[in-house]
């Protein structure tokens, strides 16, 4: 229990810190958001109107007061209004997040389909041709920028073969395949290696030697003994990639015009829509840390050894 409350306190400090940094950056940044906001329609706005809007948005107050006001709003679930969309930030974030969540979900399924069989295969046939082929492919993938992979897939399957739409500004079943595949291939290149390492570690344990001595078949050892033991480290990996998928896929969302939160954030930055940027960063921080926290909890829950350790 004490561990959990410590952890929550630490998460809280991190959230405050991260939001403060973003707020500072937005405050110090060049470019006047009010001018950007009002002059978006090619009109020149007088200084008085600018002043008035600043006052309305609370942008004339000292920095700390602005940050305090914003923080007080966040606690009540109000992150302010997006300058560019003229909508509450919370609404914009949840719109974008729905797209990202769907994309992450499909990607994780693809990742599991690609990397589990390949990783296990390459571990079981260590230093034979399957292992070399898988490791070579993983190396190629690791050295390839994800957005370039996306462009290539888009070119081949979208343009040349015409199997999938080139851009999907609305959520469609066909439109999700290519972005999810791109992300899955990119993630799998790291995943396959780690699955391989985890399985190899388990295969070198004494209990495997024992099982072999008792005459169990290799497949029985793999399915009944090795895989259940390998679940735990794999869950950590999965948790990390979910966190990454929910936060850092802006590039891929841009390539495929996918209506996700990363795409939204990049637009917000270009429009200097500071409330939206601040809300985005804070939201990602919350999601990322919550997932890490859940992964750690699941660890304690799945591993009886750790559970006992905590009771003592």
């Amino acid at each position, binding site marked *: 229990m004490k561990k959990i409350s410590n952890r929550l306190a*630490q*998460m809280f*400090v*991190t959230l405050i*810190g*991260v939001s403060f*940094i*973003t707020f500072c*950056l*937005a405050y110090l*940044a*060049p*470019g006047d958001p009010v001018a950007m906001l009002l002059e978006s329609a090619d009109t020149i706005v007088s200084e008085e109107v600018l002043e008035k809007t600043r006052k309305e948005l609370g942008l004339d107050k000292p920095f700390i007061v602005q940050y305090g006001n914003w923080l007080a709003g966040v606690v009540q679930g109000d992150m302010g209004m997006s300058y560019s969309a003229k909508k509450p930030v919370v609404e914009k974030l949840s719109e974008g997040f729905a797209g990202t969540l769907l994309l992450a979900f499909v990607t994780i399924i693809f990742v599991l389909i690609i990397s589990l069989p390949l990783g296990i295969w390459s571990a079981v046939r260590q230093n034979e041709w399957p292992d070399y082929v898988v490791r070579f492919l993983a*190396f*190629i993938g*690791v*050295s*390839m*920028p*994800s*957005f*370039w992979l996306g*462009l*290539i897939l*888009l*070119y081949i399957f979208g*343009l040349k073969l015409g199997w999938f739409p*080139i851009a999907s500004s609305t959520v469609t079943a066909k439109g999700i395949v290519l972005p999810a595949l791109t992300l899955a291939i990119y993630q799998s290149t790291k995943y396959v290696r780690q699955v391989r390492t985890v399985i190899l570690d388990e295969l070198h344990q004494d209990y495997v030697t024992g099982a072999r001595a008792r005459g169990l078949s290799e497949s029985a050892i793999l399915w009944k003994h090795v895989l259940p033991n390998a679940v735990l480290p794999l869950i950590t990996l999965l948790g990390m990639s979910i*966190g*990454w998928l929910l*936060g*850092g896929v*802006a*590039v891929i969302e*841009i*390539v495929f015009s996918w209506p996700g939160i990363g795409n939204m*954030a*990049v637009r917000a*930055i*270009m429009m*200097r829509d500071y409330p939206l*940027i601040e809300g*985005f*960063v804070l939201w*990602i*921080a919350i999601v*990322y*840390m919550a997932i*890490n926290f859940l992964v750690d909890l699941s660890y304690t829950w799945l591993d009886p050894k750790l559970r006992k350790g905590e009771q003592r």
Partner: protein
Amino acid sequence: MAEVFKKNKLFAVYTALVIVLVLIAIFAPYLAPQDPYDGNMRNVLQPPTPEHFLGTDKLGRDTFSRIICGTQVSLFMTICVVILLALVGGLVGILSGYFGGKVEMILMRVADMMLAFPGVVLAIAIAGILGGSIANTILALLAVGWAKYARLVRSLVIKLRYNDFIIAAQVNGTKTINILWRHVLPNILPMVVITGAMDIGTMMMEIAGLSFLGFGAQPPTPEWGLMLNEGRQYIQTAPWLMIYPGVAIFIVVAIFNLWGDSLRDVLDPRHE
């Protein structure tokens, strides 16, 4: 040095490739057949021909020349980022590991905060808000990445801290700065160099990614990520514009990844 290369043939090969890349980067302006900035509106979006064998872009600039000059931009930015990361992270790590106390606590809390957060998101926010430029990209990646190095160096220094040779130096009245410089630094340097070398490829891709989003190098700089972004709009009419800069990134990142891995094998024999 020659012995190291003789023993580790692969490392020698990869080092040679890295040297070739560095030479290409240094002499890029002389190697490029045409001026990477000089457009020719009569040659817009030409497919590969003997004269422009990787084609031309929307302003009629030679893609091959731009890719060659892009080596300079990419390598320069990446090496700046990695060296600064090692310097800043190393300094924070040494100070907090050796002296401990309140400073350590605060620095490490900040480092934990940075590590508890997806770096790419913050890098995009920093580079984007400050405005896209080469310097801001370097700054953003530095702000996001130093914590990893600080953590690593701190843990190495703490392991060294109570070794006999350090205590002996302290008892002998060696100045702290000399202890750090002569005894601590040489012992942590290999690990820092390995980490830095293995990060080169990743950093290069992150730089290209930021430029691709428009938060890195700005036009007309011949930067690979930026070229991919510009080429993306011509994916139907001029696919060579989005293929070749990516190939360049791939080749260079692959070489640095191989080199980093083999450098680790050479410097850190414990690692299998």
